[in-house]
C-alpha cells in the first residue's frame, strides 16, 4: 500500500529541510530564547524571594519600631519619675540650705547687734564722761572767779599741756 511505503524523495527532502531548519534555529534562535526564558525565570524567582524578604523585613521593622516605642515610653516614664524625685530632692535641699543660711545670717546679725550695743555703750560712756567733764569745768569756772585763781589755773593747765606734749 502506498500509504505505508515511505517515498525516498520525501525522506531525502524531509531530512534536508529538517537539517536546515535545525541549523538555522540552533544557530540563531534557540540559544537566545532558552537563555532568555531561563534568565527571566531566575529573575522572577529572585523577585519573589526579594519581595518575601522585604515583607519579612517590613514586618520585622514594624515589630522593632513597636518595641522601640515601648522602650521609649518606658524610658519616658522612668525619666519623669526620676525628675519628680530629683525635684523633691532639690526642693528639700534648697530648703535645708535656706534654713542654714538663715541661721547663719541670724548669728551674724546677733553678733553685729552685740557689737553695736558695745559701741553704743562706749559712746554713751564717752558722752557721759564728756558731759561730766563739761559740768565739772563749769563748776570749776564758777569757783574760780578771781584772777588769781584763774591765773593759777591757767598756769596749771599750761603745765598740764606742756606735760602732755
Amino acid at each position, binding site marked *: 500500500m*502506498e*500509504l*505505508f*511505503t*515511505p*517515498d*525516498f*524523495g*520525501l*525522506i*531525502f*527532502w*524531509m*531530512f534536508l*529541510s*529538517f537539517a*536546515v*531548519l*535545525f541549523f*538555522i*534555529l*540552533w544557530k*540563531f*534562535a*534557540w*540559544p*537566545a*530564547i*532558552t537563555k*532568555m*526564558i531561563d*534568565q*527571566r*525565570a531566575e*529573575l522572577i524567582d529572585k523577585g519573589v524571594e526579594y519581595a518575601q524578604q522585604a515583607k519579612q523585613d517590613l514586618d520585622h521593622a514594624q515589630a522593632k519600631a513597636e518595641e522601640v516605642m515601648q522602650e521609649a515610653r518606658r524610658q519616658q516614664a522612668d525619666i519623669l519619675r526620676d525628675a519628680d524625685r530629683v525635684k523633691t530632692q532639690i526642693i528639700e535641699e534648697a530648703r535645708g540650705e535656706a534654713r542654714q543660711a538663715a541661721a547663719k545670717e541670724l548669728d551674724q546679725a546677733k553678733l553685729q547687734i552685740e557689737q553695736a550695743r558695745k559701741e553704743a555703750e562706749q559712746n554713751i560712756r564717752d558722752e557721759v564722761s564728756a558731759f561730766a567733764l563739761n559740768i565739772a569745768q563749769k563748776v570749776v569756772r564758777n569757783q574760780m572767779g578771781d584772777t588769781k585763781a584763774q591765773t593759777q589755773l591757767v598756769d596749771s593747765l599750761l603745765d598740764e599741756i606742756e606735760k602732755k606734749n
Partner: protein
Amino acid sequence: MKRLTLIAILLVSTLVSMSFSAAASSTHGDGAEGEGKIDPKEIIFEHLGDRYGWEVPFCHHKSIPLPIIVFGSDGLHIFSSERVAHGQEYVDGGKTFRLAAEGDFKGKVVEIVDGKEVRPFDISITKNVAALILTVIVVCALLLPLKSYYRRKGYKAPRRWLGAIEALTAFIYDGVIKSTLKDKASKFAPYLLTVFYFIFVMNLMGLMVVFPGGANLTGNIAVTLVLATLTFFVTNIFGTKHYWKDIFWPDVPLWLKFPLPIMPIIEVFGIFTKPAALTVRLFANMMGGHMIVIVLTLLIFIFAQMGMAAAGGTAVVSSLFSIFMLLIDVLVSFIQAYVFTMLSTIFISLAQENPHKEHAGAAH
C-alpha cells in the same frame, strides 16, 4: 453569541444550497456521461497521498506546477510537473517521461526505457516537499522575530504573537525538557524544540484545506520516519556507558542473560521499538484525522446519488461533523506534537542515566 448564531445559520444555509447543487449535478452527470459513480477509496488516497503539483482551490483540474527532479538512465532531468500533468509524455534530452497510469508506480514519474516503465531516482519537489519548505519558512518566521525582540527589549515580556510563541516555547522547554532532562536540558533543547515546532506547524498547515496548506505531511510515514530516526540517533549517540551496560548486561538474575541472552535481546529490540512507536503514533493519528474529514465530506456525494433530501440532510450533518472534527484535529495537532516531543525527551533522558542515580521510573 448573536454573531455566532448568524454565522451558524449562514453556514448551514450555504451547505444546504451547495449540497442541492451537488446532488443535481451528480444525478445530471449520471445520465449524461455515465460516470457519476464516485470511487471513495481513490479520492481518499489521492488526498492523503503525495502528488506532483499543488491543486488550487475550487478547480480540480488546475494545479500549481512544481519542479520534477529525477535521475534518469542518463543523468539529471529537471522539468515542470505541468508537462506530464494530464497523462502526456514529455521528452527531455532524448528520454521520455510520464506519470504511470497504473501498476506499482501509479501516479509517479516513470521513464520509458525500451517500452517499459522504469522508476527513476526521484527527488522531485512534490506537494509534500513544497509544504515542507513552506513549514521551514513559517517556523523561522515564527521564531526568529522572537530572538530579535529579545535583543531589542531584553527582559521585557513580549505581547501578542510573540508572547504566544514564547509561552508555547516556555511550556515545552520548562514543562517537558527541563523537568525531564534537568541539567542536560540545554544540550538537547534545540533539537527537541525544533522537533516540536516543526511537527506542530506541519500539523496545523495540513489542516488548512486550501493552497498554502492541505498537504498531509505528518500523516505521511516518510516524514514521521525521519523524525523518529533522528530521535533514535540522538538517543543512542549521546547515550551513556551505563545505558549501554543496562542493555547488554542488565541487573537481572544471571540465568536471564547467560548463557541464553534473553534480556539483552529484549532490550536491543526495545531500542528499535521506541522510534517505531514514535513513527506510527504520529503518522496514524494525523492520517486518521485527515481521513475522517475526507470521508465525512465524501458521504455527501455518496448520499447525493439517492436524491435531494438525503443529500441535503447529509450535507448539513456531515459538514457540522467535519467542522467538529477539524476543531478536534487542531487540538490533536498540538497534542501529537507535544507527545512526540515528550516521548523523545523521555527516550533521550533514559539514555542519560548515570550509575549513581536511582532508576526513577525506567519504563520501556
